[in-house]
């Protein structure tokens, strides 16, 4: 079909016109054999300008459009929309930047005009080889899989569930509630975590749109945003359930660093050295001591030492919430045992935010001792333990305590590893999942459609875990609307079956895991839903099988050829 290219040069008021000799530009471009119209306009991005464009397209039956104006980052979309409104496929358009990168940066008018002509000729040569790529939409499931039945998983499930959106909540153990149900008190309000969890579980039970699968494990998650194929094995019935979801939320929580790895803290050597979780369980009304703080001997402790940062150096991060929950422990201790001596051995007090410092100051009033110690050692001494400490300046000291509570680092749950492999989720060197973007997309993972919330992401408080569950909900509800198809990027990569040699280099370099290998055909295949159109695979492909739509070699070569005339 014969090409009828429309070329429109924008004056941009005086911004382009005062530097670039537009008459000369028009004269240079008009002789081209397929230049159907060559026009100038005062301001193409204005309503009048856009109307002018649309009219010209319709009047002259233009097959391609080139606009020479400002940066594509300003108005590529504007002009593409105009083309679409005039019935022309918007991909058959090219914008030549003769303002930001020509008129505005070239003081000499002659040079600016020459440069403009070069850029416009390049745009014209290129646009001849544009393809009318159509918009692409994909069906998607609005349902969600939530892995992990702790506070974050439960909150996310409740927020997401709706008559037109089912949530599958999979929990490995026999009961929901995670760690929160083991906390008799929560900082800073000192309300009961156990009661909170009981309330949450009641409302969850009443929610008919959440299918709770306890004693179950996820065996397979295959697919991509909008279309994940999931297999879950329930231990109870030894059944395998298969279903489709549009998104996955990982809320597998945390475990504590094992203080046995650090013998200097005396864990396992002395009877009354406890981890914080053990101390929490002791305080539960249904716990081993009926909620009473007691030594193994059955007597209440008279002196308690709380040792911070156990394992911090080894893990190389600060677990964020420990200073705070240790203050909570102070209150719990003083409430039951007002006469007990309570001492903290810590390095830095981490109290970020508007309320935590006040919580600390108020707790201090209960008569708590804080000793800044760079090195702490706990040794059994027959009656209890001796705490040896050393300050930053080198002075040493000693103290005794009947009971020692160790504050170990928070680690990602060990199941996370297995799920990471299953979902192809990258983990950082510390065992936590890597975010899509640490700052701008904190609850999304590197795999589109998979979200990570709560302590699976990194140590944090209950409040932050809930916020993240709500955030993942926001991302999912925004992207996957029931009844609405997913619109995907059109300028994606494609791999020619005939040229592909099956070397899989493209698969290695794709940042989004958007390319898979077809074992039967022994070729690589691009998933257009996941492809972001960066073109890395194209540059990596040794056989030229991969090409990026709208940025093909041929299209770029045409530009290259013209600018080098």
């Amino acid at each position, binding site marked *: 079909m014969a090409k009828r290219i429309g070329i429109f040069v924008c004056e941009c008021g005086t*911004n382009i016109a005062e530097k670039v000799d537009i008459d000369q530009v028009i004269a240079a471009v008009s002789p081209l054999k397929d230049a159907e119209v060559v026009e100038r306009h005062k301001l193409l991005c204005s309503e009048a300008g856009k109307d002018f464009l649309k009219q010209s397209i319709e009047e002259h039956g233009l097959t391609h459009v080139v606009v020479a104006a400002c940066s594509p980052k300003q108005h590529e979309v504007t002009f593409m929309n105009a083309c679409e409104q005039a019935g022309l496929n918007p991909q058959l358009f090219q914008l030549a930047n003769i303002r930001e990168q020509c008129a505005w940066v070239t003081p000499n008018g002659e040079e600016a005009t020459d440069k403009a002509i070069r850029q416009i000729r390049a745009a014209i040569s290129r646009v001849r080889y544009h393809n009318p790529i159509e918009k692409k939409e994909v069906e998607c499931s609005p349902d969600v899989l939530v892995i992990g039945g702790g506070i974050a998983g439960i909150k996310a499930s409740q927020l997401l569930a709706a008559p037109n959106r089912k949530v599958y909540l999979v929990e490995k153990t026999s009961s929901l509630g995670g760690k929160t149900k083991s906390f008799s008190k929560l900082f800073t309000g000192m309300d009961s975590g156990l009661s909170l969890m009981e309330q949450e579980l009641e409302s969850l039970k009443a929610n008919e749109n959440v299918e709770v699968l306890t004693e179950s494990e996820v065996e397979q998650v295959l697919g991509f945003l909008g279309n994940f194929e999931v297999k879950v094995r329930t231990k109870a019935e030894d059944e395998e359930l298969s279903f489709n979801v549009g998104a996955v939320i990982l809320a597998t929580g945390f475990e504590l660093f094992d203080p046995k790895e650090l013998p200097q803290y005396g864990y396992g050597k002395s009877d009354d050295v406890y981890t914080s979780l053990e101390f929490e369980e002791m305080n539960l009304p249904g716990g081993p001591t009926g909620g009473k703080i007691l030594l193994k001997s059955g007597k209440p402790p008279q002196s308690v030492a709380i040792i911070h940062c156990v394992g911090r150096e080894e893990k190389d991060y600060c677990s964020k919430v420990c200073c705070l929950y240790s203050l909570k422990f102070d209150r719990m201790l003083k409430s039951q045992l007002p006469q007990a001596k309570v001492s903290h051995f810590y390095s830095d*007090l981490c109290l970020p935010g508007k309320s935590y410092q006040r919580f600390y100051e108020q707790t201090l009033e209960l008569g708590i001792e804080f000793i800044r110690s760079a090195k702490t050692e706990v040794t059994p001494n027959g009656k209890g333990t001796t705490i040896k400490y050393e*300050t930053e300046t080198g002075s040493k000291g000693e103290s005794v305590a009947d009971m020692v509570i160790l504050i170990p680092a928070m680690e990602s749950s060990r199941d996370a590893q297995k799920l990471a492999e299953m979902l192809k989720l990258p983990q950082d060197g510390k065992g936590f999942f890597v975010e899509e973007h640490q700052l701008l997309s904190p609850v999304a993972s590197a795999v589109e459609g998979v979200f990570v919330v709560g302590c699976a992401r990194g140590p944090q408080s209950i*409040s932050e875990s809930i*916020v993240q569950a709500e955030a993942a*909900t*926001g991302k999912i509800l925004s992207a996957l609307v029931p009844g609405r198809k997913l619109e995907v990027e059109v300028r994606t990569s494609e791999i020619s079956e005939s040229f592909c040699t099956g070397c899989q280099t493209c698969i290695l370099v794709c940042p989004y895991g958007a390319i898979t290998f077809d074992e039967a055909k022994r070729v690589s295949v691009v998933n257009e839903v996941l492809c972001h159109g960066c073109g890395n695979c194209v540059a990596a492909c040794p056989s030229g099988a991969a090409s990026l739509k709208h940025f093909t070699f041929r299209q770029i070569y045409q530009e290259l050829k013209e600018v080098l005339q």
Partner: protein
Amino acid sequence: MSGENEMNDKEQGNPVLVIGAGVAGIEASLLLANSGRKVYLVEKTSYTGGNVIKFEEVYPNMDCATCMISPKQQELLANENIELLTLSQIAAVSGSSGNFSVGIKKKARYVDLENCIGCGACYDPCPVEVDNEFEEGLSKRKAIYIPCAGALPNVPVIDTENCLRFKEQDCQACQETCVFEAIDFTQQDEELQLKVGAIVVATGFKSFDLRQTTQYGYGKLSDVYSAMEVERLLASNGPTQGQITLRNGEPPASVAIIHCVGREEKGYCSSVCCMASLKLSHFLKKKLPEVKITQFYSDLCIPGKAYQEFYEEVKESGVDFIRATVSEVSQAGKELALKYATEDGQEKTLTADMVILNPAVEPGVNSTKLAGMLNIPQSEDGFFSEKEPDLTSIATAQDGIFIAGCAQGPKDIAETVAEAEATAGRILSLSR
């Protein structure tokens, strides 16, 4: 709509008001708009991006802040579901969840958003020059201006406090230069009435006013800076295009960074300053490899999986960390002398060419007025209060009104974005 929960029928599809077009407001708006909701994004200033666009790099990965934010800003400006109302403030709020009536006062920009193409020709002819607040007063701007190169929307505003026309003088300099007839002196302030179903408060933060302190010499000693001023000095689109110099034009050979300025007065830890100080150290060392940096702090606040490594890296690069309280900064010849006391009571002095103060983070201006209009409680320090602090930080006592980012309390960008996304999650969810 089929299958929707009847209880929330009237709320379904209702527009949402987002107050503040910083990083939190932008994120919440985009999520809501992409789900199909109409969003009114009300912003007090003439530009979007809030405080984050003032930073050249952000911790812990030293991402380029503008590179990070500008795709979001552009998405915002292009999104048809989002109506951005700059130079606007909330005047009154009534009603309840699902049915709020909001009065907006929109100041005139005097420049037409459609016709202006952002060429900047109007700045030169303007005869009025004043301190540029965006640049922390380190450079000047005209009465018709954009706060910095690259600001979005790229359309100037006329500052009615300083423009001669508002002082009874008939100056037409800018209008005469504009070939697009984009400058319109006839524009009027407007009052708008919006009906929305939910409100997100994302009004951000400002820095503790260092002039309230006397011991550090801020405002008197020429080379005592606030951290925000240094951020602008480090910015490649800032007043010195990224050059770090003292007032005399020479680069500093030694820098002292003081943490927690205003912490005692405010009574809380501002969360972000330890990390921001590390970032400044890292950046300063990159620009001036020989510079000697000393940090004065009380407790190192570097929570979470990502920050400790950064601290260790900075420490290894030769930055000194002294746990001490600085009692006084005074002029000692060409240098500044810092008198400080360590925890074990020793008193010492350190000299440095430049002193950088880290001010506490406070809620953005007018927060008390806004709290009153929205009828949501504030804490003593002015931050908006959440209903159940131990559960989620974003829900207020008013059903349908949510808070996100530093409006709720000092926090970093990741936490801010998570909260913004969480407000969208609550609003879009049927069960609230």
